[in-house]
């Protein structure tokens, strides 16, 4: 293996940085459409769902210690079916990467660089992601951990918004929208919180036992969930239900109204900072897809995949022009994420147990 190993601490930050990203900005209003001002409960529920997915994925990986998901599917399903499944995984990762890049570019165009053509924005985003993503796992881990510092700043920034009027009453009555709606809202939140799939590929390279990794990955997911709940509640406290419906990125509008003696438009500063978590989750999917393509097509060498995958995403991005198409694309990717985070691991797990490939002994260690 050409990848060097990473520490448990770095694993925590890799999962954290992969999960946090562009999804947060629109999360409160997306969730609101179903579960009203109980949206934060939806986010919490989504965190629990993600935790179950993590457990599922971990259980699968734990039975095949030292193997990534690509190797596992070849072991379980045989060479040809396994290869086909790996290609499906790769395509999924690639599509998520494309979606993230497109959303990212659109967001920048909408908020900061109104006159820059979308293709140019897409180009710089992908070029940066390429430069970051072509380094090996150890360097990525260092980078993710270094840049995690900015997340703390971004948590602090909304505090300033609270100096204005906020209304506890907006949150009440708790549970008014009912369990069904809350669950529906959780679906929107899960889309914003995926990214933990990275464990399927990097877990074999983490130092220490698999038990510790589960602890750290869960901890990362918990942090993300609490952070998202925090942002959601912050938005619900400040905006009235009528306002939330209209605005698309409430987290940014939260800061737009705040101004200081020396700095105005905190939203632009927040967005500039938030570029970093957005890029890291993009890079994560780039890394995953390039790993997958390299494993299935180039005997594990990432030399070529890192070049043609971003190019493919760029060309794909040129076809999406209208917001409607973006929405449709986003919907399909969100639906397919369930296939690859729940259905496929579960299927692999069941088949491996049926075909007696699953290694129980190693899982008890």
């Amino acid at each position, binding site marked *: 293996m050409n990848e060097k190993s990473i520490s448990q601490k770095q694993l925590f930050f890799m999962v954290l940085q992969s999960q946090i990203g562009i999804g947060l900005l629109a999360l409160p209003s997306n969730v609101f459409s179903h579960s009203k001002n109980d949206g934060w409960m939806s986010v919490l529920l989504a965190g629990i769902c993600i935790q179950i997915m993590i457990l599922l994925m971990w259980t699968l990986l734990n039975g095949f210690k030292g193997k990534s998901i690509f190797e596992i599917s070849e072991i379980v399903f045989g060479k040809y079916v396994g290869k086909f499944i790996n290609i499906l995984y790769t395509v999924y990762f690639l599509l998520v990467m494309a979606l993230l890049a497109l959303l990212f570019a659109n967001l920048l165009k909408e908020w900061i660089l109104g006159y820059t053509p979308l293709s140019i924005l897409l180009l710089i985003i992908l070029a940066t992601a390429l430069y*970051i993503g072509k380094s090996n796992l150890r360097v990525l881990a260092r980078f993710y951990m270094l*840049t995690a510092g900015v997340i703390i700043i971004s948590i602090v920034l909304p505090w300033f918004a609270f100096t204005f009027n906020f209304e506890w009453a907006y949150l009440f009555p708790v549970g008014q929208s009912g369990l069904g709606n809350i669950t529906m809202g959780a679906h929107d939140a899960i889309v914003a919180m995926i990214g933990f799939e990275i464990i399927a590929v990097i877990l074999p390279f983490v130092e220490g036992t698999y038990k510790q990794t589960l602890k750290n990955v869960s901890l990362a997911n918990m942090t993300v969930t609490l952070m998202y709940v925090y942002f959601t509640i912050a938005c619900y406290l400040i905006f009235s239900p009528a306002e939330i419906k209209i605005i698309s990125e409430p987290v940014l509008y939260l800061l737009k109204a705040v101004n200081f003696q020396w700095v*105005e438009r905190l939203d632009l500063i927040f967005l500039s900072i938030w570029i970093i978590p957005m890029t890291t989750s993009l890079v994560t999917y780039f890394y995953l897809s390039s790993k997958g393509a390299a494993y299935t097509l180039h005997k594990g060498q990432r030399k070529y995949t890192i070049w043609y995958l971003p190019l493919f995403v760029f060309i794909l991005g040129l076809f999406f022009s209208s917001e409607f198409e973006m929405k449709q694309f986003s919907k399909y990717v969100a639906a397919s994420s369930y296939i690859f985070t729940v259905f496929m691991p579960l299927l692999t797990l069941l088949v491996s147990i049926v075909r007696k490939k699953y290694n129980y002994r190693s899982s008890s260690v």
Partner: protein
Amino acid sequence: MFRRRGGKGEGLNAYENPQQEEKSLFPKLADNIFFIQNSLVHTEDLIIQHLSETESLFFIESLVDSKEISDKVLTRIMNRDNEIVCDKKITNLYEMTNLLLDGYTFFISESMTFAAGFNSSAQEKRSIQEPLSEKILKGSHAGFIENLDTNIQLVRKAVKNPKLMVRYMTLGERSRTKVAVIYIEDLANDDIINELFRRLSYAKVDYIQSPGHIQEFIEDETYSPFPQMLNTERPDRVVANLMEGRFAIIADGSPTAMIAPINFFAFIQTPDDYNNRWLIGSFLTLFRTMSILIAIGLPSLYIAVVSFHYEIIPFELVLALKGTLEFVPVPPIIEAVSMLIILELLSEAATRLPSPIAQTIGVVGGLVIGTAVVEANLVSNSMVVVVALTAVASYALPITEMGTTIRLLSFPLMVASSLFGLVGIVFGLMVIFLHLCKLESFGTPYFTPLAPFRLSENKDTIIRLPLWQFIKRPSGPRPKDSVRTGHPRGWKRDE
């Protein structure tokens, strides 16, 4: 002469035993004389003094101290009975030629089976001064000079440690420069030292003037803008780094020592931080960290604000900036780049010129260019402030090399910010940070202790905590012995 080395590892340890040809002394004096003259191409400063029919004295006039010869060499030759008292007994003529070039005097007699060598080299050296480029307020004011022996002496005097290892080697096939690698045997990591010598064994060049020449052969990433070895002229800095398990390379004829494996933060520390109280040290280090941020980010931030994000700054400030910018015909990026070019030109001119004329440059630069450019509305007032602040910030770094690197990196960032505003800056900074994460110095991470993050080692990165807290050595150079102090303040507990 430069045979390419084929496979890996072949060149290992070749530096220690240079492939020297063997040629033992001839019995006849005339043959010896002929051989020596031939191997030194009949140079005219090779003096062969015939003492008698069968005895001769050899030395190179320009390299020896004539007083040494008359005082030491001749007395010893005159006063010998059976055995001659000499510094070196040499039988190999090739070795003798090399030693002649080191300033030795040789006495050859047909009655002896060896050539008696006396060290008589002329020690032409300047006195020890404080290095011009690394001045400090408090602490040792000694600096390295161009003489290798003196430099090693300065290091040895500061650490009287029997485990201090000095390994000599000769690099440069034609210049035959003597190079010393210094490290502390029971601290420096063996793998790193082995790797150093492995890399040095490939350094086959004709001429090496200073460690700077070697640096580009052995550093990990030559294309990186960041220096991966610390160049210093201060013995105290060398010693402090040796004590953390790093090694230093000193070459004869150069006052610069190279230290590796090094990390980024070593470039913003000075001995001053440790010679002052820790609060003052922290204050100064914090300011230097800030100066890096200013030097790298201020011009691009200014460009981003005035050309993209007026709304970020408050209204009153917008008015003030607009007022100065209104009559300037060029976009901010051109303004900034041209001002920075003027600045670089001024500093470059002032460095090379003799000091009386350099003052003129200061006047021309500061008054004429500075004021006239603004009055002619070629550059805005605020831009002059920004550029001046950037320059001052980058010159505040204790190692000029890093200051220049930082200033250099501000240019691509300015271009990025003029194209994409704040977004461009963030993307640019991400690329720089990733590069720093990727960079390694002799296999140790360059941006440690920030990436990989080690909280306990951040005690002297952007602040400096009291010295008794530095219980362990930094793990970057992977020292053999990690514990640095006992309990220096144990007296307080035992009261």
